[in-house]
């Protein structure tokens, strides 16, 4: 918790500032939307965090999102296969992809950046080729299924919790528990610090790394399904472009070190929330979209710099206390 104070402060600051400048920000409608987007991006960021914690990186997220987003409607609407079969096929595909990433990284000792960069290129090409570059969507059918992405759990008349957000919270709880209270989480943190030392401790590091890549691809796939259901219109060439960078940015903002071995799920979720909130703030304050990227870049930088200062101050204070 203490480690996430910096990023939490940033979240509160952006929130309060936006609310003060634009009252419409606090409408139930807007808050719901922001929560829904936070849920969607939070899901993929949690998966990214696992890989980062083991000292790897996953650049394929955006392309996996595109691939799932193209395949699911093609199978459901185009080929009219039953839902259960389609889901089974998607899960099987994701498992294979995650396994592949993991095996290439461990057994062939290829660099994670390279393996997943190839994934980024390959799956995007695959999605474009399979669909013939045609936009895919569920049309007006599958309204029920689409509730998974656009539905909400009603709380008051006007406000409800969007389902993607609820899914994300559930996922975060599980992920947090795995990371902090199970041996597997401990193994991942350990091998993130030093794979060699972890292996010398008798940990099956390969298996844990493969597991992390599977988790990342699975959450990307889950995110991809929800994104597709939400947007309901998937352009194979652009859908999910750069999403891996958002996921990684959220994880890093949330305290994951790309050197591995460090990270908290709560932080990652807050990180994703900050990013989404920023997007929302820029649009709702009517700031030129041209500045969108610039502002987000600047805020991430400010966030990590602030974090670094907090760390330096607290660590020097600790020393003083110890003396």
């Amino acid at each position, binding site marked *: 918790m203490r480690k996430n104070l910096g990023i939490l402060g940033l979240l509160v600051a952006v929130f309060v500032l936006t609310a003060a400048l*634009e009252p*419409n*920000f606090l*409408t139930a*409608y*807007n808050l719901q*939307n922001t929560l829904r*987007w936070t849920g969607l991006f939070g899901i993929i960021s949690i998966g990214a965090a696992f890989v980062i914690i083991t000292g790897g990186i996953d650049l394929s997220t955006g392309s996996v999102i595109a691939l799932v987003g193209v395949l699911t409607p093609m199978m459901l609407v185009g080929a009219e296969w039953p839902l259960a079969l389609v889901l089974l096929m998607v899960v099987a595909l994701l498992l294979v992809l995650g396994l592949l990433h993991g095996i290439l990284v461990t057994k062939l000792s290829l660099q994670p950046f390279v393996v997943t960069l190839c994934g980024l290129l390959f799956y995007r090409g695959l999605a474009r080729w399979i*669909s*013939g*570059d*045609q*936009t*895919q*969507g*569920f*049309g*007006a059918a599958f309204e029920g299924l*689409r509730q998974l992405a*656009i539905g909400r759990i009603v709380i008051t008349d006007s406000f409800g919790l969007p389902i993607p957000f609820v899914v994300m919270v559930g996922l975060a709880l599980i992920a947090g528990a795995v990371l902090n209270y199970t041996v597997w989480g401990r193994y991942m943190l350990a091998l993130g610090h030093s794979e060699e030392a972890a292996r010398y401790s008798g940990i099956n590091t390969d298996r844990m790394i493969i597991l992390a890549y599977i988790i990342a691809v699975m959450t990307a796939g889950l995110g991809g399904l929800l*994104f597709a259901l*939400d*947007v*309901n*219109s*998937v*352009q*194979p*060439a*652009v*859908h*999910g*472009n*750069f999403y891996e960078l958002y996921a990684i940015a959220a994880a890093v903002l949330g305290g994951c070190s790309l050197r591995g071995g460090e990270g908290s799920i709560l932080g990652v979720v807050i990180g994703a929330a900050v990013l989404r909130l920023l*997007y*929302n703030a820029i*649009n*709702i304050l*009517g700031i030129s*979209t041209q500045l*969108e990227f610039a502002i987000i870049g600047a805020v991430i930088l400010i966030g990590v710099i602030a974090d670094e200062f907090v760390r330096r101050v607290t660590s020097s204070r600790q020393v003083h206390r110890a003396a």
Partner: protein
Amino acid sequence: APGDESADRPLVGYVTNGIASFWTIAQQGAEDAADTLDVEVSVLMPPDGPAGQRRMVQDLLARGASGIAISPSDPANQAGLLSEIARSAHLITHDSDAPESERLVYVGMDNYEAGRMCGRLLKEALPGGGSVVLFIGLLGQLNADLRRQGVIDELMDRPSDSSRRDPVDEIIGNDRYTILDTRVDQFDFARAKGQAEDAMARYPDLDAMIGLFVYNPVQILEAVREAGKLDEITIVGFDEDEATLQGIRQGTIAGTIVQNPYRYGYESVRILAALARGDQSVIPESEFIDIPARSITSANVDEFEAELKLLIGQ
């Protein structure tokens, strides 16, 4: 609609389907209309297709926009989003239509028809027929697909049917024209140029190149000029990039099909402003405000440029 309580300066939204210089001209029109009619306009250009549109529209609604003009990337699948707009604001479409939705009016042209016009330009410039390669930024977006199909159908002398789709990786031909390929560059100008070069390398006897997005004719022209094939290859294109117009003036480009993005922007905001103030009379019976495409060739290029300069106030 709830937007009716006419505030002093109602907010209207103008959402494009991407980022392009084409859209900045439309933005000019939208902002001019907003100034004249005393409304506030927010022009939003999503960098990432339908997902960005959705996000931006929702933010507009949250800000209490009284009306939104949108160029839907994918109307068939965006029904939900469009009805979400229609529930709380005036919805109109521009540039690309969504006839199935509850939109009040469509401001724009018929992209399929524009594609056919482009095909006719080539037929005039290359009456004897020949081999053709098409260049386009992105497929899967309705107006892009329609444009490409229009060109193909015109060159193949087929009857009009905007629902037809020819696959990308097949050679299409009749006794006069052969369409060898469609190359997609994803808005990467360098790649667009590289693809034009590679097409000439692959087909040394290529007769014509058609650029369907605003920058395509420019990059084609660059590549053809560097290859020294200006005399051999006929170029036609879309939109009014300065270099394209210059090429037409110099005779290196046979012609281009221009839309009128300024009017798209202006008309959209004019209609939304009137609606915001309770004036329903701006909506014509046909629910279509036609801003037709025009063929620009060396015959009318100077006239057109003068007109354009006047509009964007240069």
